[in-house]
């Protein structure tokens, strides 16, 4: 009898040891209800950590030199700074500026033109694009199967060491879903724990009057597609959303980007044409090009004095979230900054 109890005890211990730890992800209520169904596919620490390792691993590219982080740097809210157009494998220059990554669980389409319809399948696009990573998911799976410590990591994350496309993509999605930014000064003002300066307050009013119909609070984007009056770059001839829908009504429409962490995500617009927020202000007051698909809000030019522009920029800087940008759980994985498992907690 005692022996039997002992065996049962040992077996349950073993089970407990291999049960993957459900992750406690703090989903800020202030951002509203996420699009992603976390209940259906709960995050686990092991999958998130595996996804993070994959995000930073150039094994995803054909020549094993380009990782996701090449164009999505954690210190810049996962944007690609200093390059108007992002560059991929063999330094080939692409056609767009890599968008910043944050609050992805609240978005139902991805990429500047909405070509991708789900966070879990998003990595397929850069992995197989010949000017980004020029690889295939099939070959990535094959490489991972033969690269230590991936079989062990998949074992820990999924209960066995089988590596499939489904598992690679799920792990990568889980890491990216943790990239939540909702801890800026703006957020604490809304929560009532901080107050704007007079200048920021003025800027906030201007923002609400002129910008917030597209850059909708609290996510600072409605994540819809709009033509914001940028002149067509005749070298790129990028017509945005129309390339996906083939509908002329979608000509020159691009996804409205969030303004959160805008301080870190320069240059701006889908082709990175503006280096500074000043240039962005000037575009909206005097640079808007009228065309058939121009967003109705921009039909009349936005009126901003030079003081207004300074105030508006002061407000935009309250959207910077240093706890997001310097979160060590999002940075290059090393033994010193891996996520704590529940049992490691004091």
């Amino acid at each position, binding site marked *: 009898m005692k022996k039997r109890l002992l065996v049962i005890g040992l077996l349950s211990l073993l089970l407990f040891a291999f049960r993957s730890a459900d992750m406690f992800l703090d989903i800020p209520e202030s951002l509203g209800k996420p699009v992603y169904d976390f209940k259906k596919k709960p995050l686990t620490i092991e999958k998130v950590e595996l996804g993070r390792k994959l995000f930073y691993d150039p094994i995803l590219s054909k020549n094993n030199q380009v990782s996701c982080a090449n164009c999505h740097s954690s210190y810049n809210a996962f944007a690609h700074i200093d390059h108007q157009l992002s560059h991929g494998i063999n330094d080939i220059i692409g056609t767009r500026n890599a968008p910043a990554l944050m609050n992805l669980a609240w978005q139902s389409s991805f990429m500047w033109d909405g070509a991708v319809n789900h966070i879990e399948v998003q990595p397929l*696009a850069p992995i*197989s694009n010949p000017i980004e990573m020029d690889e295939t998911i099939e070959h990535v799976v094959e490489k991972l199967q033969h690269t230590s410590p991936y079989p062990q990591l998949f074992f820990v994350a999924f209960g066995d060491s089988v590596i499939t*496309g*489904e598992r690679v993509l799920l792990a990568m999605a889980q890491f990216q879903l943790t990239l939540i930014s909702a801890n800026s000064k703006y957020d604490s003002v809304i929560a009532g724990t901080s107050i704007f300066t007079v200048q920021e307050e003025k800027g906030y009013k201007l923002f609400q009057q002129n910008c917030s119909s597209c850059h909708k609070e609290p996510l600072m984007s409605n994540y819809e597609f709009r033509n914001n009056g940028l002149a067509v770059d005749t070298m790129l001839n990028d017509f945005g959303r129309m390339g996906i829908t083939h509908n002329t009504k979608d000509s020159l429409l691009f996804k409205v980007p969030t303004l959160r962490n805008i301080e870190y995500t320069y240059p701006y617009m889908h082709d990175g044409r503006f280096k500074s927020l000043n240039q962005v202000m000037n575009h909206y007051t005097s640079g808007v090009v009228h065309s058939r698909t121009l967003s109705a809000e921009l039909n009349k030019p936005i009126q901003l004095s030079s003081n207004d522009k300074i105030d508006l920029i002061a407000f935009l800087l309250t959207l910077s979230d240093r706890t997001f940008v310097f979160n060590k759980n999002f940075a290059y994985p090393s033994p010193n900054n891996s996520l704590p498992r529940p049992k490691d907690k004091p």
Partner: protein
Amino acid sequence: MRTLTRNVILPVVLFSLMLLNTSFVDLFRDKVEFKGYFGKEILFEGKNYFCTERGDSISIDMCRFYISDVEFYSGEMPVAGFDYKLIDLFDTSSCSFYISGYSHGPITEIRFKLGIDSITNVAGVGKGDLDQTKGMYWTWQSGYINMKIEGKSKLCRTNRGTFQYHIGGYSAPTNSLREIVLKAESDNGNFQINVDVEKFFAQLDMEHTTHVMSPSAKSQELADQSVKMFSINK
């Protein structure tokens, strides 16, 4: 205790197992097999088929497609079914499956969709045959490829005469999902679904349409045409 085990439980268990076994194997287990043809000839990978209507030849290197929402009817009643399967005409192991676990009358109709529906298309990563590594998924624009037909023909003015038709698109106006309903008649419980690739090319202007690789009007035309390939029990 031991007597009880020997005299009652064991025989009952064995007898139930036997019953179970019989019912699955002999009574309610029908085989369905997809088989490729080019007109009246059996389809082989890379073989040249003389295309009588065009006076030229076509060879097929790949013919893969998804079937989904597969339902087996007995009269008006659906009696069995499954969600999806990837069929590769040149991989015989993928071409057949068994219908089991149903307990009503003979199967008289087989219904399925050619391709993957919109709900599955926006549901993220897929398992098994829906795994995005199966080569049946567009990476630059999310969505499953419902059907791939690739090969060579001198009719195509392309390098080595290659053609590639990738049919897909899950939302209006480029929804290329098509429904197929086949009256099933079988004496022995085995159904052979013929896939006559020649019918796919019958209306196709191969000189001008050599590559279709995106959700588009062309993709829709080809989807309409591909429905005509399927028939049952030649």
